[in-house]
C-alpha cells in the first residue's frame, strides 16, 4: 500500500473507473467495516456479503459522492443499509444482543476513550441501560437509522423501536439530571 492517494482522491478515481483505487479503498476500509458490522449481526456470511455489496456499490455509485464529509462515514452509511437489505431478504436471522459483552478489564480502556471527550456521566449511564434499549440507541443514534430501518436490523416491530427509544431517553434524562 505504498500509495499516497487520499480517500477522497480514491473515490474520484473510482468514479472514473480506476480498479486499483477500489482495491486501495478496500484495503483501508474493509477491515473496520467487517468488525463494526460483526457487532451488529452474528451471521458472518451475511457480514461478508454486506461488505462485498458495499464495495460493489461504491464501484457503481462513486460518482454520487458529493465530496462532503468523511469517506468513512459515507461508507458506513452504505454498509449499514446493505446489511438491513440483506436482513430483509434473510429473515429470520440471529440478531446480536448488542452490548452484552463482558465488562471486566475494560475500565482502563474506557477511561482512555473518554479522555478529552466530554462524556461526563453519559458513559456509565449508557452502560446501565438495558441491552435492548442500548441496541435501539445504537441503531437510531449512532448508526443514524430510521425507525423502520432499525426495526429491520433488530428484528422488532417499529412501534417497539419507538417505545424503547422513548424509554432509553427518559432513563438517560433522569440519570443525567
Amino acid at each position, binding site marked *: *500500500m505504498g500509495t499516497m492517494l487520499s*480517500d477522497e482522491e480514491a473515490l474520484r478515481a473510482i468514479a472514473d473507473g480506476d*480498479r486499483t483505487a*477500489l*482495491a486501495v479503498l*478496500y*484495503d*483501508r*476500509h*474493509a*477491515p*473496520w467495516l*467487517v*468488525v*463494526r458490522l*460483526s*457487532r451488529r449481526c452474528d451471521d458472518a456470511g451475511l457480514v*461478508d456479503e454486506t*461488505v*462485498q455489496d458495499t*464495495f*460493489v456499490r461504491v*464501484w457503481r455509485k462513486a460518482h454520487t459522492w458529493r465530496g462532503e464529509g*468523511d469517506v*468513512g*462515514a459515507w461508507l*458506513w452509511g452504505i454498509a449499514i443499509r446493505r446489511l438491513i437489505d440483506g436482513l430483509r431478504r434473510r429473515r429470520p436471522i440471529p440478531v446480536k444482543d*448488542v*452490548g452484552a*459483552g*463482558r*465488562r471486566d*478489564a*475494560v475500565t482502563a*480502556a*474506557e477511561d*482512555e*476513550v*473518554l*479522555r*478529552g*471527550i*466530554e*462524556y461526563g456521566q*453519559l*458513559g*456509565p449511564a*449508557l*452502560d446501565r*441501560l438495558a441491552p435492548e434499549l*442500548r441496541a435501539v440507541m*445504537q441503531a437510531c443514534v*449512532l448508526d443514524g437509522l430510521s425507525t423502520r430501518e432499525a426495526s429491520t436490523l433488530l428484528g422488532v416491530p417499529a412501534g417497539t423501536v419507538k417505545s424503547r427509544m422513548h424509554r432509553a431517553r427518559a432513563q438517560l434524562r433522569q440519570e443525567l439530571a
Partner: protein
Amino acid sequence: MTPPDPWHATTELLAHYAGGRLDPAAAWSVEQHVTACRECRTLVAAPDRDEGMVDTGRLDAIWAEVEATVDAPALGPVERVLLWAGVPDHVARLLAATPALTVPWLAAVAVVLGGTAAIVRLDDIGPLLFLTVAPLVPLAGVALAFGRWSDPAHEVALASPVRSGQLLLVRAAAVTGTSFVLAAVAALLLPGYGWMAAAWVLPALAVTAMLLALSTWWSPAASASAVGSAWIGCVLVVETSASTSFASFGAEGQVLAAALGAVATGVMLSRRDTLDGTA
C-alpha cells in the same frame, strides 16, 4: 474544552473492541473515532495485513467476490426489465440469453407483421395472409429459442442445473408471450374485421403446442418446419376448396385448433422428460 492532543485508540483498545469486549459507551466512542480517523483504521487493517484484526483469508475472499461482481458484464435492458418485474435472477439470465428475445428478432417480427398488416389495406387476400403468418411467428420464435446453432449460451444451458426441458418451456412461454403482444398490435392495424382480427390466436397456440409436442421426438427446428408447413398446407387446401372465404378461421376451424392444441399440450406434458434429451 479541547483535548490537549488528538486522541487515538491504542492497539489494545481496538483489539478489545474487535473482540467484542468493550462496554457500549467505549465501543461507540471507538466506532465514531475509527470511522473518521485514518490512523486508527490502519491499526484495524494493520499495514502489512499480517497482524490485522480481521482474518486475511476472509478479506481476500470478500475481495475476490467484489472483483468477480465488478467484472461481470453489465446487465442488458431485457434482463434489467425482467429483474425489475421480480423475475428470479437465474431465470432472467436464461431468458435474456434467449436469442429469440433479442432486438434483431423483435425488429424482424415487427417488420414482418407490420408489413403484412399494411398489405391488408391494398389487397383482398391480405387479411388471410396476415392470419396465416401470425401463428408462424411464435412457432419460429420458440424453435429459435432453443437451437444449438442460434444460442450463444447453448453449452452453458446444457451444463446448467436447470433441466433443459424446463428451460425450453420457460423460454417458449416468454417467446410466445412477446410474439402475441406484437401480433396483437399488428392486428389492431387490420381495418374493420372485428373479431376476425383475433382469429389467429387459437391457431397460434395450437401450432406452438404441437411444436412442443413434436419436439419430444424431433429437434425443435425440424418440428417447427413440419408444423409450419402443415399449417400453411391446411390453410391453402381449406381456402381453395371451401365455398366461403376464411373458412379455416371460422367456428369449426377455431374448435379444431383448440382441440389439437389441447391434445398436443397433453402429449407434451406426458413426455416432457424426453425434452431434456432432444434440447
